[in-house]
């Protein structure tokens, strides 16, 4: 639940409405905008679809950049995205996002590119406002794109103050005298600032609520409610403002959706977009009986991701879990296919080993029923994807590849039968803060076959696992969007040709011009061997 307040105060809203009347046309001509004003004019249905599809490809590019483990907003990240956009021939966006060193050419950002950007953003709002999962995905990558644009913009437009003021951020410049007085805390309190670089940048103060990302990570010096920001961190401030605005805007779009869907052409097109988003949201209603309590012990060893297997084993050992763990594990089981009745039996069986039935009934039953949409606002909750789990991590919840220290992780891996080589490959990934890739590696070690796609969800882990036990795995294209096929590395088991394990250069799949996966001979051979 969230305070449903617009990020704008009443005064700003009034101002913005006046600004709308004045700037409706000029907004879309700005090299960078926060999409405060919707586009006007006509668009054909084909163009509607094409513009939206194009932007979706761009957002997917940002998603991929997150998966290959590049530090966000770093130079390598930026290069990866730009080259990928170029490869996919998404020229309008390549233009919008790249730094233009030459200021004369820079002044002329194609009006066409800006138009596509403006319209497609608003179309995708409609397609992605429907569920929390979709909104979160859309917001994450729109904010990343926005921030990259801001970064690129700034290299040639030093008057960032005007842009910020136009968008409701009022920066106060810090005078040199004050900066010098606060020398030590500024240097110690601000990430990546040293005594030498302190004076090389302009400093600003903003109310701390405008710099929440920096506050959260303690990467900024705070005094009396104000955050001291070096010019370099303005991107974070602006992005936070944009994010808040977008969250509010999507909530508004959600309310307008029924009206929009009255046009059946739009309705079918928007629904289609839902399906194009290949991330499933695993919000099973939980009324099927495929999985019963007796099956869980074996299933957990065979097919549960480590995060869930650990929770299961902890539950069996302690007969209790803290709230975070109950949520994480309970929703996972629901999506796996455990019905409400079976869930009640399952949890009750364990909990009543340490409490009487009465207490279970009073304190825990409600939450179980709530997760299945049988209480309160009757929403059927989706199982938590990796991104959410990675952000938690208190007692009993979280991801072992992020929240366990090396010691505990090593114990877990060896208890699960992973050998020393496999464990060290996993440690390499966890040490580089890539828990999802580490989990993917784990999956591949356990199942001795490559993992298709990118590990984003515990239930995805489970389903892919079940496929290897049950169905027949086709070796070639299964109609998947190929650009999502990312291989972490080869499984440890040697192929008959003996080349697999030793050949590290063969382990990275490479995309060729057409977006097809290009594989070395060795990789191909060993894949065929392990089938």
């Amino acid at each position, binding site marked *: *639940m*969230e*305070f*449903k*307040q617009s*990020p704008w*105060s*009443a*005064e*700003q809203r009034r101002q913005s409405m006046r600004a709308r009347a004045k700037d409706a046309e000029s907004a879309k001509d700005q090299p960078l905008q926060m999409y405060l004003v919707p586009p006007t004019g006509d668009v054909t249905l084909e163009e509607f679809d094409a513009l939206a599809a194009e932007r979706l490809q761009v957002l997917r590019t940002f998603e991929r950049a997150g998966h290959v483990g590049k530090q966000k907003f770093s130079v390598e990240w930026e290069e990866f995205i730009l080259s990928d956009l170029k490869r996919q021939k998404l020229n309008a966006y390549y233009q919008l996002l790249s730094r233009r060193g030459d200021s004369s050419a820079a002044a002329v950002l194609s009006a066409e590119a800006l138009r596509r950007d403006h319209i497609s953003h608003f179309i995708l709002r409609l397609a992605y406002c429907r569920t929390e999962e979709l909104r979160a995905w859309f917001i994450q990558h729109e904010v990343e794109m926005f921030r990259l644009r801001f970064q690129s913009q700034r290299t040639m437009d030093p008057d960032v103050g005007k842009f910020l003021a136009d968008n409701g951020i*009022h920066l106060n410049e810090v005078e040199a005298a004050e900066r010098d007085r606060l020398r*030590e*805390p500024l*240097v*110690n*309190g601000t990430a990546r600032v040293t005594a030498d670089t302190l004076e090389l940048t302009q400093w600003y103060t903003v*109310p*701390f*609520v*405008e710099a*929440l*990302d920096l*506050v*959260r*990570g*303690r990467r900024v*010096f*705070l*005094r*009396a*409610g*104000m955050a001291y920001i070096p010019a370099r961190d303005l991107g974070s401030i602006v992005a936070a403002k944009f994010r808040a605005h977008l969250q509010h805007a999507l909530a508004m779009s959600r309310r307008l959706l029924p009206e929009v869907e009255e046009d059946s052409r739009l309705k079918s097109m928007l629904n289609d977009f839902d399906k194009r988003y290949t991330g499933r949201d695993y919000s099973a209603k939980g009324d099927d009986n495929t999985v019963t309590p007796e099956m869980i012990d074996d299933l957990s060893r065979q097919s549960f991701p480590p995060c869930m297997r650990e929770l299961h084993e902890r539950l069996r050992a302690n007969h209790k879990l803290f*709230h975070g763990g109950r949520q994480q594990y309970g929703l996972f089981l629901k999506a796996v296919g455990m019905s409400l009745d079976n869930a009640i039996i399952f949890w009750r069986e364990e909990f009543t080993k340490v409490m009487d039935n009465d207490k279970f009934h*009073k304190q825990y039953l409600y939450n179980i029923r709530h997760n299945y949409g049988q209480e309160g606002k009757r929403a059927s909750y989706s199982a938590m994807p990796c991104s959410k789990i990675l952000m938690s*991590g*208190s*007692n*009993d*919840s*979280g991801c*072992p590849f992020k*929240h*366990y*220290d090396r*010691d*505990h992780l090593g114990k877990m891996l060896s208890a699960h039968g992973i050998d020393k080589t496999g464990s060290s490959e996993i440690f390499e990934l966890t040490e580089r803060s890539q828990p999802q890739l580490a989990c993917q590696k784990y999956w591949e070690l356990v199942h001795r076959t490559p993992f298709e796609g990118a590990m984003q969800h515990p239930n995805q882990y489970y389903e892919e696992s079940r496929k290897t036990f049950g169905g027949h795995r086709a070796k070639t294209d299964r109609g998947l969007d190929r650009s999502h096929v990312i291989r972490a590395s080869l499984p440890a088991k040697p192929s008959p040709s003996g080349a697999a394990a030793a050949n590290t250069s063969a382990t990275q799949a490479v995309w060729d011009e057409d977006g097809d996966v290009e594989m070395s001979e060795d990789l191909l051979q060993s894949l065929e061997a392990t089938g």
Partner: protein
Amino acid sequence: MCDENILTDLLPVYYSRLFPSDKFCKWLSYGGDVPNYLDRREMSFTLADDVYIRYQSFKDAEEFQQELKKKCPHKIDIGAVYNHKPKERNSVAVFQPQEKELVFDIDMTDYDDVRTCCSGADICHKCWKFMTIAIKCIDDTLRKDFGFHHLLWVYSGRRGVHCWVCDAAARRLSQQARGAVAEYLQLIKGGQNQAKKVSIGAQMHPMVERSVKTCRQYFRTVCLDEQDIFASTEQHTTLLKLIPDDATRKELATSFLKLKTSKDKWEELEGVFTRNLHSGKLSRSTSPRLLEEIILQYTYPRLDIEVTKGLNHLLKAPFCVHPKTGRVCVPMEARAADKFDPMAVPTVSQLESELNEALKNQEAPPADVSQPMLTSLKPAMQLFNKFLAGLDRERSTVNKKDDPMEW
């Protein structure tokens, strides 16, 4: 220990003569500038037999006190201010929380891993010192870094303290902002699968530096002397697990066996670590701030982030009687945390007899002195009044136009 029957007998008297309903409602009205602010505040009652009723709301102190006398709740919780009266929530289309104080809850049970004198719900003067450390660290940060002024610290009645940040700007913080404040404050991270829970980097953030300074002041007396926290082999093994450098750890594992007191072991650790640090022999993964990190892990406040983040979270009201101890949840002064004695907090039966004693020689209670002032509740009331006066002063100077903190 207090039992339920005593409560049932004494609460009616407590609510009619001692519980400061008028001041309580004055607090939650925040000057009456915002219409129906008190009215739209959710309260919940826990009655006898664990019956729990939510979405209570009251338009003024009289109505509130009447309900208290009638229902005699064993516990009162305060929730958020909603966009409509909680009592009428079913008659409106959209019912959602709008404002709430920024709150923190520190619980002694979270310190079981660093105290030897008590465990679970028990507390004593020795381990209460951890609360003093917590109050100092948090109060300092909330005031100095975040610029908050109106902090109400309240003893929770048994084993902890609550902090209510009542500034207008604090009440309007979004869930995201509350989470960010909580995470800024949180230095101890990691569940049971993370042995070493504090990681502060070579260059200490000013807030971390300030906290280390505070914690250091108490570490020796509290952890080494009073708790003797490294005395047993098991305990000093736990300490050793926090040292990433193999050589240092091994060296200490041997020398610790020859030492008995925590003080000696700590001094040994300091010596060996500092020596290895200066000779450049430490492994890359060992922070040069390891000593500070260990001190923090043993003394810095343990925060429950969910309590602070949650807009739906209801927190026990000040001046409640704790059902298990009979003690009143009294406001306390952060700056005088050192002198606060949880064992000296008045219980409801004690107050009852004090009141009877005070009134027995009089025809009628003195008109100008409210009855709590005749009892041991007086200091707590004076503190609360001072707090309310502070809120009044802010209101008279605040500019009604858009406040930059409004974001």
